[in-house]
């Protein structure tokens, strides 16, 4: 049974001039941690806002826990937790007051659902009398998550929860999501950090309002069609320039300390020819090896080639 379903959802802005979400259909199963991965402006937030009943879709239907997002919006509002990308709690109220306020508007109390937020709330409890606006970035996220969880929602929508949060806090945050998932809460999360994608059960790669690929992170990586190579030399800047003018390559781009590349055809001579070419160009200390594609590689490939064809 799918907890979230989208059928041909389309959303435009400026009276149809800007297409934000383009005929998207997918579903999220109960208890799943689903990630929407894509760059800024891909349409992630629009999807979140439609599913949380803040925005009406132009076309198509969507349901959350079986309720229609247009007709049964009141019911949905009682059973979902939403954490927008921007910190939007009352900055002039304290941590405890914010939490108390949101508990009350959902018709519950902190005491009643304390077990739901205990793990997270304990971390910010020492600061419970501090104004929310004076918290650090990571603390704010934890408080926002508490506020989204206080009414025991069945589905949690987290829109870019880790943007602007330091590496340690990001890691902690995903640990928390994992624990929440174990409690049976369906979670839909969006991010523009590719490394977070592997932490989801399934991911949807989204660009320009379209879903380019949708599968488990492992399957998406497996489906990378070409062999992927990593290369580095003593002069990386020149190396990238030299590679870009080589016409046997399908693509090449910087990825950490290496440059990732793949060839247009799968001839066995490719590697030796390229090494020779680079040596002629005067590159030294060459390290050239085959590597495993990551979600980021898949995404970059789809960006360059949205149709998914290898040529």
């Amino acid at each position, binding site marked *: 049974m799918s907890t979230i379903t989208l059928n041909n959802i389309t959303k435009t802005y400026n009276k149809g001039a800007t297409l934000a979400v383009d005929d998207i259909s997918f579903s999220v199963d109960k208890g799943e941690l689903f990630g929407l991965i894509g760059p800024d402006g891909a349409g992630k937030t629009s999807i979140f806002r439609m599913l949380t009943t803040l925005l009406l879709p132009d076309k198509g239907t969507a349901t959350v826990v079986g309720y229609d997002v247009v007709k049964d919006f009141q019911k949905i509002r009682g059973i979902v937790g939403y954490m*927008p990308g921007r910190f939007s709690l009352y900055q002039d109220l304290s941590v405890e007051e914010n939490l108390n306020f949101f508990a009350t508007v959902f018709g519950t109390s902190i005491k009643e659902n304390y077990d739901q937020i205990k793990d997270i709330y304990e971390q910010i409890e020492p600061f419970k009398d501090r104004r929310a606006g004076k918290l650090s970035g990571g603390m704010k996220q934890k408080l926002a998550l508490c506020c989204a969880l206080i009414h025991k929602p069945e589905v949690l929508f987290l829109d870019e929860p880790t943007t602007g949060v330091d590496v340690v806090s990001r890691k902690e945050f995903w640990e928390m999501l994992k624990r929440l998932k174990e409690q049976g809460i369906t979670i839909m999360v969006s991010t523009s950090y590719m490394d977070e994608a592997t932490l989801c059960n399934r991911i949807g790669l989204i660009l320009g309002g379209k879903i380019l690929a949708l599968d488990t992170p492992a399957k998406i990586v497996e489906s990378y069609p070409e062999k992927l190579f990593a290369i580095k030399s003593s002069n990386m800047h020149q190396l990238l320039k030299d590679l870009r003018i080589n016409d046997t390559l399908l693509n090449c781009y910087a990825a950490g300390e290496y440059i990732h590349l793949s060839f247009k055809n799968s001839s066995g001579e490719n590697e030796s020819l390229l090494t020779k070419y680079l040596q002629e160009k005067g590159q030294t200390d060459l390290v050239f090896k085959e590597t495993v594609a990551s979600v980021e590689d898949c995404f970059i490939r789809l960006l360059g080639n949205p149709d998914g064809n290898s040529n």
Partner: protein
Amino acid sequence: MRTLKFLLQKEFRQIFRNKALLRMMFMTPIIQLIILPQAANFTIKNINLAVVDLDRSVYSQKLINKILSSGYFKMAAFTPSYKDAYELIEKDKADIVLEIPQGFEHNLTRESSQKLSLSVNAINGVKAAVGSGYLNKIIQDYNNDIRLEWMQPSTINQIPTIEVVSSNWYNPTLSYYLFMVPGILVLLVTLIGGNMTAQNIVREKEIGTIEQINVTPVKKYHFILGKLIPFWTLGVIVFTMGLVIARIVYGIIPLGSVALLYLFLSVYLLAILGFGLLISTYSETPMQANSLTFFFVQIFNMMGGLYTPIDSMPGWAKFITEIIPISYFIDVMRMIVIKGSHFHDVLMHILIVFLMGVILNTWAILNYRKTT
């Protein structure tokens, strides 16, 4: 009800935590009510008078003394010719030139008639009109004085004269404060009520908390009531402070029923808060809300009948005063405070403002729905 209670609790907590807002809300009325009426005073004083006395006689001296002793005029200069006096007007050193022609005394005593010339600098229209009015009155007085002096007791009854004695009803001493302070108080309540409401809701929009509230099961009317009730209360508090200041500083005690004043205030605040709510639905940022409020407050200020009487406005302007709520409140304030009007005198005002409140709030709520 429980939700509403918590919304209100949250709202009051935020208001009392916002030091800048509190200061503005309570200091503005105090300062404005004490300073504004003293400065924005219509009593024209210190009119600069240039005198061209070509006669230099006892009578001309008497006239000048009488004018100066009235207290309204300040002697700017004695000039030998009209030309010199006109120069003073051009340099803005003199407002009125009084020219006493040569042979003033002679002609007055021999031919029983004489002409004086007044030249008024009309750049400041109010000063010019009021100043020349004063001067005319003084000269007329002077005229009567000398007539009495010359007349033979037997002939007094032979010349019929009409003397006009006016008595100022409701404001016998023509106190400017009695007229202005209640009006300025209305303006303040309007400004605070309208602007604060708009600012507050737009702020929630800007920081995104309104979205956070929208995904909760909180009902629209809960949210709106949660906003209206606190600001309604604040409006009543500010108004009360204003009445106390009027009593202490200006000794103004409403002649009519204070309860009736508060009844009207309650209805009026409903309309003004609805107005603030409406502005908030049309603005995305506090800056936009500010500009919009500023635009309307200017209109309220100039057309509400606070400074200039509505009856002397042109027809289209009268129409505008009829559709802005502030003109009704200023009117009612003056009626109750100065004249001591009763409930049935202001009933029509109450009904009209109530209707405005219903329209503004309905409009705001409909528009609020549409945008979310």
